């Protein structure tokens, strides 16, 4: 399959470490962006124990990002699991060229990170709340 954007080895190692890090409580997130000039993906931020609303505040309003989220899911029977969720943060006010590049490389990133659960957030900060994530995860 053709790759439009390269994923450096360092990023792949970061993704592995993020996936296997032992978590006790809270949601952790890793934010990755596409560098349009160099056509390469780079890690931007990592957050430990952050709420979805704070995460929405940290993400840019007008730029697309890939967000790997380790979400603390409380099951109705009392269990706690930490599923890995990939959020496609793609606000419609982003620059069109960057948005297309981001979309074309998304499947590649998903396969590299090896995540099956995907949430699309296209309308900015309103679309990333605890309720939205909980309802989407129940379906997935």
């Amino acid at each position, binding site marked *: 399959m053709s790759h439009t954007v390269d994923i450096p080895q360092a990023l792949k190692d970061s993704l592995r470490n993020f996936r296997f890090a032992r978590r006790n409580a809270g949601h952790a997130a890793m934010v990755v962006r596409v560098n349009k000039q160099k056509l390469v993906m780079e890690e931007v931020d990592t957050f430990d124990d952050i709420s979805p609303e704070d995460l929405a505040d940290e993400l*840019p*309003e*007008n*730029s697309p990002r890939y967000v790997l989220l380790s979400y603390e899911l409380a099951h109705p029977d009392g269990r706690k699991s930490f599923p890995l969720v990939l959020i496609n943060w793609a606000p*419609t*006010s*982003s*620059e*069109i060229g*960057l948005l297309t590049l981001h979309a074309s490389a998304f499947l590649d990133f998903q396969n590299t990170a090896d995540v099956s659960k995907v949430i699309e957030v296209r309308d900015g900060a309103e679309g990333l709340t605890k309720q939205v994530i909980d309802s989407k995860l129940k379906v997935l």
Partner: protein
Amino acid sequence: MSAPEIHSLSATPITSHSFNGDRSQVAVSLNSNDVTIYSRQGKDWNVTETLSEHDKLITSIDWAPNSNRIVTASQDRNAYVWQETPDPQTGKLVWKPTLVLLRINRAATFVRWSPNEDKFAVATGARAIAVCSYDSENNWWVSRHLKKPIRSTVLSLDWHPNNVLLAAGSADMKARVFSAYIKDVDSRPPPSVWGERLPFNTVCGEYGSPSGGWVHAVGFSPSGDVLAFASHDSTISIVYPSGPVIYTIKLNSLPYVTLSWTSEDSLIAAGHDCQPIVFSGSAGGWHLVGTLDDTSAAKQSGGTRGFGVAGSQVGRLNSAAFHTFRQADSRGTSSPTSAAGSGSTDTELLTVHQNTITSIRPFSGTADRVAQVSTTGVDGRLVIWDVNNVTELTGKMGALRLH
């Protein structure tokens, strides 16, 4: 107390006008797809440049005085930001356009730069206002939409001095004050009479006039604490939000379509009556003061009042006979009337503007003490008025037939 300066820029209507910072140039839309820039040479205004990029009629132009950028909005659903940059080959300064994707599916009707000139707001027919700011990370203009609770075309806008609040007049008969706070562009504004802690798209107030009617023009006072709007039911309303108190002045003249504050306690409105009218008041009440158009002044023979530059041309082009033919041509009559002067008042109005005034802007002075205002209208004239030259409105008014 000086007479108004009259300039006939064209025979076509002037849709919108905007002066640059030092008032040496004016950018004008002559009901067409191009921006025409006139420069002042002596007493005349002459065409120096034409900016072509839009595909349809340009509805509104605004020239930022400090950053020297022009923003144009058009019926083709786009806005362009024009910047003067040196041309790589010739080195001359040319106007280079940058497209702004507004993401609207109807025409843009009105555009205004914010006071700090870091964002601009575009009123559209898509029942939304697009607030645009520059995203330096991606090197392009980003637009965010103010949608709720607008139910129809937005006709006019005005920014509050704090660079965050935006007043909008709409065809759903309401004047509203929105917060257009953009996260990376604005710092938190201090609390004002309109509210505090205002995220984007908060409605700080919604006002209408008693009989309803499209709100054609809105304006904040120089301090930003008072809002005025002109409505199609021939009323001017002034809102004091701290009360809340609304003073509505009902007029028996034709509606106003544009207004401009000249100080904290007075404003000038103009519209289908073809003359600028002055209103004055305070938190205790508002009333009509008079008109800037002295219609009782004697009409000179040949109607030279219509051509503000008298005596600059010499020789055969300045004779009275040539003038009568020129008048007839501009008025579209097939043959000039036989009596010089008085006969031609059949179709000529007694006011300076011969048709609706569509735009009034402060010309000189400070924001809270404007000395002159400029008006343009459907008759293709640009007139600069002295704000203090107010005469009482008498029965003998140019366009009206009062009973």
